[in-house]
């Protein structure tokens, strides 16, 4: 047998190393729809508990919205289950085009191309438009999918310190001789919840004749006055050359992503982006659901307003209770615990209190930066947040970390 014991033992050993380091990921099983209240089985085989979900990307509470479900049902009936085709062969229905137009309108860009996921959009966009004469200058904390997309591109690459505009300017000066300079950033950073300084970045890009790409996966639908994204927040609609985003978070949560921006860039992606040419088109049932999401968002800002209020309440509550949280203006609010094991124990205790929030530790975040990343939803009502806050405070008291500084917590629990 070619899968020799040597290979098997190698992987078994690697797995036990992960376990010993306390960074093994266990799956938890959700027995209900995605919503503020969910039913969870954890660990495998344990009895199902009803808990409050504080860590989904369901920011607008639309992942089980009855109108979205109804639209999905209708989509199944009218346009079928699957297309079994990539876009350019026989995988484009009228509703695909319709969704692209809706996204273009919503984001204030010139054109949009759909991808099976934002991971695929990020994997495909750089290689489709840049060559070795160009340079990609990215923030050091961009999402993993952007990193992979850049690795697949032959353009040169440099990085700047996270959100550090002086450092970005130095890099733009350093690389002035390159043909195309593309500055790359997340709109909202997924682990810390902070917003990119898009206003300053746009200014710098204009000054140094560079283009800008923003991954708005954690902003589309709710950041900005009408939820159009980070560019709306910074009054930069129309100034971002490329926006990538997902329909797998706030915008329904099922699947799908897109590249939206300048017309020629999108056209080049249609001709050259590998995930577009070689991977299945988004299925009609999913498209139908996302179209309904856009209907809901265009009719009122109720959901994103509620989300904003919820997030502000939650930040205030945690800060006043004595937790260390990262500053920000988004519904991603990391509660910093620094030590990996502490974050896992804290999460288990929260679970016993009926709150579902998991610990994030290396390699998802840097070593010594473990946290519980809470994510607020428009689906949260006041009673959810109150119960959650009380639980956090109770567990915080148990571990005696309320009011402590980072140094004090790490002294107590180690890094």
């Amino acid at each position, binding site marked *: 047998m*070619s899968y*020799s014991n040597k*290979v098997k033992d190698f*992987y078994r050993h690697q797995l036990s190393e992960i376990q010993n380091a306390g960074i093994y990921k266990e*799956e938890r099983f*959700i027995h209900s*729809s*995605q*919503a503020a209240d969910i039913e969870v089985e954890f660990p495998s085989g344990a009895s199902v508990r009803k808990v409050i979900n504080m860590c*989904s*990307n*369901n920011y607008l509470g639309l*992942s*089980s*919205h009855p109108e979205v*479900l109804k639209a*999905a049902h209708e989509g199944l009936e009218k*346009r*079928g*289950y*699957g*297309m*079994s*085709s990539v*876009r*350019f*062969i*026989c995988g*484009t*229905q*009228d509703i695909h*085009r319709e969704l692209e137009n809706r996204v273009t309108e919503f984001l204030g860009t010139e054109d949009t191309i759909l991808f*099976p*996921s934002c*991971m*695929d959009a990020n994997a495909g966009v750089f290689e489709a438009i840049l060559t070795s004469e160009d340079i990609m200058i990215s923030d050091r904390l961009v999402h993993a*999918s952007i990193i*992979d997309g850049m*690795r*697949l591109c032959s353009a040169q690459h440099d990085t700047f310190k996270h959100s550090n505009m002086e450092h970005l300017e130095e890099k733009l000066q350093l690389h002035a001789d390159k043909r*195309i300079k593309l500055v790359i950033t997340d709109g909202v950073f997924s682990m810390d919840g902070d917003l990119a300084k898009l206003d300053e970045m746009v200014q710098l890009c*204009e000054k140094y*004749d560079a*283009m*800008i790409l923003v991954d708005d996966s954690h902003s589309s639908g709710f950041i900005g006055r009408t939820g159009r994204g980070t560019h709306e927040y910074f009054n930069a609609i129309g100034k971002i*050359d490329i926006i990538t985003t997902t329909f797998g978070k706030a915008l*329904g*949560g099922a*699947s799908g992503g897109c590249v939206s921006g300048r017309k*020629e860039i999108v056209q080049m992606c249609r*001709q050259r982006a590998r995930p577009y*040419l*070689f*991977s299945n088109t*988004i*299925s*009609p*049932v999913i498209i139908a*659901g996302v179209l309904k999401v856009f209907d809901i968002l265009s009719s009122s800002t109720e959901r994103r307003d509620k989300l904003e209020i919820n997030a502000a309440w939650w930040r205030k509550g945690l800060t006043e209770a004595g937790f260390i949280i990262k500053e920000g203006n988004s519904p991603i609010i990391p509660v910093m615990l620094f030590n990996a094991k502490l974050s896992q124990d804290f999460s288990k205790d929260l679970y016993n209190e009926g709150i*579902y929030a998991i610990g994030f530790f290396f390699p998802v975040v840097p070593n010594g930066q473990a946290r519980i990343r809470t994510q607020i939803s428009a689906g949260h009502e006041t009673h959810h947040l109150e119960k959650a806050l009380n639980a956090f405070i109770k567990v915080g008291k148990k571990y005696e970390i309320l009011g402590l500084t980072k140094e004090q917590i790490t002294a107590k629990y180690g890094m």
Partner: protein
Amino acid sequence: MYTAFKDHLANQLKEIEEAGLFKNERVIISPQGAEIELDTGRKVLNFCSNNYLGLSNNPDLIEAAKRALDDHGYGMSSVRFICGTTDLHKKLEKKIAGFFNTEDTILYAACFDANGGVFEPLLTSEDAIISDALNHASIIDGVRLCKAQRYRYENADMEDLETQLQLAQEQKFRLIVTDGVFSMDGNVAPLKKIVELANLYNAMVMVDESHSAGVVGETGRGVTELYDIMGQVEIITGTLGKAFGGAIGGFTTGRKEIIEFLRQRSRPYLFSNSIPPLVAAAGIKLVDMMTKTNTLQDKLHRNSEYFISRMTSLGFDIKPTKSAICAVMLYDARLSQEFAAKLLDEGIYVIGFYYPVVPKGQARIRVQLSAAHETEHLDKAIGAFGKIGKELGILKK
């Protein structure tokens, strides 16, 4: 900011157009099936979808999807390990493992992601990947993201594979990777021989069964079934987006430790959204259907044989194939587009395949058969191909 680049791109697009390589989309306003409706109002016969078993609009799958919408909602809005795993996901993983006779399965949004995320966690710069030259683009991208040493063998060339295996003996672990059915040509990988060589030279084997699962093998279990070597391949990747319903979803299935390790380290799994419950539910229904009866697989095999033999008799240059893919070679990109346009006038929907999906000078029309096709559909297509073939001087009159 953008002006210079805009001109540069506009030029590139113009060049693509002038070279006859521009891709246009046709817009469909019906569900996928043997017969589809275009936005021009025309009803045409579809001969180029991956809908091999005709299940993309199947009422039982739709019913299962609807039930899951009602019970489990629309989307998970989460990666798997946070709050993106339901009982449906786990059940589907088990069913797929059962179907392929493997030990465990991990789901992805697409096989593109499964292939993108399999090599990097498993192999380091001390290891070797030995890859067939015609492997799918997603495998190529997955290999590019991995630091292992890269070896390449000519398409299905077992002597070349053996040479590469010998060269790769200096690496620690070796992984041979091949498509089960090659997507542009339709030929089947000589998997039995590959496994023999793998055993001889101490290598693992990975097969991408995207165009073979559901299609090849007596019960549609793919190339490992075809060669009677089920369970002997370490890693199988595949898709739910072709024969198995056509919506979305992909998977890696294989040895337990490998799958478990992928759950801990595979980037698309850790950083991309979990598939929606409705797709998992339809997937479960589909595997049950496939396990109960072979009617669809049998019909697909009959349709493929019927079509390919008649097209070959007509005199077309068909790539040797043992799958449901029939590559009609035309070589010139513009000719392939002209041929396809004329076929559309005859009510047959196919498209020309040209650079960059196939190498330059190797343009073709890739016909794909389906269990949804009836004999009269096949006869109509064959007739149209014959007519246009003569008209354009490809066939002798």
